[in-house]
């Protein structure tokens, strides 16, 4: 079990199991507390020990401790991994049988060996970097939530606080996400994928007293189901064709061209299915509508799940399965990314809710990552995934700090001048804004440059796809504009709400901000720092980049390398233009009332995606549900009126029988002579029939 020299990968397994401990303890504790409520004697003592009607802050400290232990274990594991000579990769992977499903006939071949589903882990460089990112950012966000969720510890508005429940969901989420990252087969990924989804559902709908939160949670869950259906199709194709779901084995099949036994159509279907799942999780067009609504959850959740980790799972999956994608699928991924990054950025331009701006920005950045992987920039896409996680977590936590300081005000138009009262929040957020805009020497600059270079290389190698470079370039300018707009509206100028009385957040909330700001600056550094291609993190990923089936991939890669500087300069120019324009509009003088009015138009309506889905699917479903409901309901006002319903039909049969009975009953008149007459007549008729037969 603890034989770490033979199996150093178990460090990551233990790190994964770490957050499961508080999840189980909190679940059992909460259950016991619920069962002993109102009891006397030793049960009552136990109830009071578990917090009684209050929610103990201890739950949070306990969870933070275990999450930090997980972070420590992953860092220890990372040190061992990078000091390993890499000659024995099997030391970093193990698997155990899970479900044996016997002989499965694959296609026209004779029955092969027994097929089984396995549970296992496989640690490679991507897993190491991703787990370090998740546990590190997770610890910071768990710490931040101690301050942000403090309201929930006591008795709030006459109901019991939900502090323990919040940390239960958070730790369960951390376990699922880590399990997703270390899994060595797609089925285990799928299981964790669903666990992550359900944790997201719980946390979006955490404020159960808000109807909008419940609606948003449903929306997120249902939209994700659409993507998961595609994921299952991909899994089915992979399993029936190759008889295994092990990611390494599947990638090996595709490493040297297209393997035998799979037609081109199935190959495309496999890729599209997997990408469909990823698009659902990573909020890509057309399944992007759930992410902005997911901002109904508590802000630490938005930071952890809907910016840094869960939505990253889709990009991670696409990166993991990169060699399995057909050229057409990669092109589709690139274009979906392009559409997503552009549409979301335009919506962020006019959004007025501080968290929504960040949510659309997240969509847009995820689009960048998908586009990068689609054009063959595997390392650039995953590099951006890692750097983006840090500065987006920072931005969300900063927004959380602002919301906390302003007593749950989220509207940018009612902020302003906050840099004077919340200096730590303001300047750490400024670092985040600069990083996401791609300011030189900050982490976002390295990864965004790499993406744009790969996009440029691809469009030079395939001149028909020039949009794949110009779209991201234009959006780099838009990104800088909306991020500076957000910062200037919230922190610049003077306060537009004099009665707000904002205050700086406590140290438990500002410390994670400072740590994440430091990471946002330095996490991608290498030597020399001024060379965009020298980033240690980026090169570390580039060294293990798998071979994919990209159209003109070799040429694109060479062109990307030789045009890196040009792409970087163009991106910088776009960012400076966007940021400068934001300064001109919002920085020089207080915003005019015209700029602060409620936004309208195609951007403010999110390109009418929500309206379209509402009229196409939601309202049709509701109509169908209402129709089926009427078949089983008589209206309460006129119970006898609607006899066409199912209920009316069954009642009708009963009524028929009752009416027939009432008629037949009259035959029993009680008059003896009537009976005798009937008897006599019957005898006569019978005799008549007898004679008729005998004749």
């Amino acid at each position, binding site marked *: 079990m603890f034989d770490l020299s033979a199996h150093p990968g178990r460090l990551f397994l233990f790190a994964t199991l770490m957050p499961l401990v508080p999840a189980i303890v909190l679940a059992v504790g909460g259950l016991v507390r619920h069962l002993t409520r109102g009891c006397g004697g030793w049960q009552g003592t136990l109830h009071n020990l578990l917090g009684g009607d209050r929610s103990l802050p201890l739950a949070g400290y306990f969870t933070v401790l275990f999450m930090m232990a997980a972070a420590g274990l992953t860092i220890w594991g990372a040190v061992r991994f990078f000091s390993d000579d890499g000659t024995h990769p099997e030391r970093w992977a193990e698997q155990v049988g899970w479900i044996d499903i016997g002989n499965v006939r694959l296609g026209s071949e004779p029955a092969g060996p027994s097929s089984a589903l396995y549970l296992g882990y496989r640690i490679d460089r991507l897993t190491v970097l991703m787990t370090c990112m998740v546990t590190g950012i997770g610890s910071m966000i768990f710490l931040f939530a101690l301050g942000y969720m403090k309201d929930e510890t006591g008795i709030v508005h006459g109901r019991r606080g939900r502090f323990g429940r919040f940390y239960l969901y958070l730790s369960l989420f951390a376990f699922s996400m880590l399990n997703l990252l270390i899994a060595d087969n797609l089925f285990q990924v799928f299981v964790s994928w669903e666990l992550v989804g359900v944790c997201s559902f719980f946390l979006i709908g955490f404020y159960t007293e808000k109807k909008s939160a419940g609606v948003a949670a449903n929306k997120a869950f249902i939209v994700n189901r659409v993507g998961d259906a595609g994921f299952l199709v991909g899994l089915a194709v992979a399993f029936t064709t190759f008889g295994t779901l092990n990611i390494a084995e599947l990638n090996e099949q595709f490493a040297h061209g297209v393997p035998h036994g799979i037609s081109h159509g199935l190959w495309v279907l496999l890729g599209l299915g997997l990408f469909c799942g990823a698009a659902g999780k990573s909020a890509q067009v057309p399944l992007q509508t759930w992410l902005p609504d997911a901002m109904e959850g508590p802000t630490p959740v938005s930071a952890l799940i809907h910016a840094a980790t869960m939505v990253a799972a889709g990009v991670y999956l696409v990166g993991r399965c990169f060699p399995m994608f057909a050229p057409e699928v990669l092109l589709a991924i690139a274009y979906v990314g392009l559409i997503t990054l552009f549409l979301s950025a335009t919506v962020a331009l006019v959004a007025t809710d501080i968290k929504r701006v960040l949510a659309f920005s997240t969509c847009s950045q995820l689009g960048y990552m998908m586009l990068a992987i689609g054009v063959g920039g595997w390392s650039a896409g995953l590099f951006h995934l890692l750097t983006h996680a840090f500065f987006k977590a920072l931005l969300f936590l900063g927004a959380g700090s602002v919301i906390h300081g302003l007593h749950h005000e989220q509207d940018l138009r009612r902020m302003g001048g906050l840099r004077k009262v919340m200096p730590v929040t303001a300047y750490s957020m400024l670092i985040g804004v600069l990083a996401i805009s791609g300011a030189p020497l900050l982490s976002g600059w390295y990864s965004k440059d790499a993406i744009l270079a790969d996009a440029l290389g691809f469009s030079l190698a395939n001149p028909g796809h020039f949009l794949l470079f110009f779209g991201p370039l234009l959006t780099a300018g838009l990104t800088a504009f909306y991020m500076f707009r957000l910062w200037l509206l919230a922190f610049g100028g003077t306060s537009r709400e004099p009665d707000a009385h904002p205050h700086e957040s406590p140290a438990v909330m500002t410390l994670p901000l400072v740590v994440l700001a430091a990471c946002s600056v330095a996490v991608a550094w290498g030597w020399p720092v001024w060379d965009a291609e020298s980033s240690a993190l980026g090169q570390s990923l580039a060294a293990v980049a798998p071979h994919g089936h990209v159209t003109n991939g070799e040429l694109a890669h060479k062109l990307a390398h030789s045009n890196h500087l040009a792409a970087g300069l163009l991106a910088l120019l776009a960012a400076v233009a966007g940021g400068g324009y934001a300064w001109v509009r919002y920085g020089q003088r207080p915003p005019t009332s015209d700029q602060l009015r409620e936004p309208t138009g195609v951007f403010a309506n999110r390109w009418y995606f929500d309206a379209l889905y509402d009229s196409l699917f939601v309202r049709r479903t509701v109509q169908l549900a209402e129709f089926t409901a009427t078949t089983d309901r008589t209206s309460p006002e006129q119970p006898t009126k609607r006899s066409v319903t199912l209920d009316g039909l069954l009642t009708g049969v009963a009524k028929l029988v009752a009416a027939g009975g009432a008629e037949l009953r009259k035959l029993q008149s009680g008059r003896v*002579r009537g009976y*005798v007459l009937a008897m*006599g007549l019957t005898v006569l008729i019978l005799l008549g029939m007898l004679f008729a037969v005998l004749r």
Partner: protein
Amino acid sequence: MTELGLTPFLVLAAFLFACGVFCLATKRNAVGILMGVELILNAANVNLVAASRFVPELRLEGQVFALMVVVLAAAEAAVALAIFLNFYNNHGSADVEAAKELKG
């Protein structure tokens, strides 16, 4: 003395049966109805005994069934008279038209 044959007996039985049915249909008195039932039963008995005498295959069966009917008629009369007695106690008359409690 010449044999009468089966036919006169059947005619007698039919006459008796018709009288019984007529009695059932016209009498309102419960005892009268009971008498009608007795007539019908005895019409059947005449048939059975005549068949026993003139049909060789039914020699034994006719007599056995006639005895059976006699026993049955005695039992029926006992039960029916008991019912009528109770009926008279409850209603103060033996008129069957008065029995309307279970009318549908």
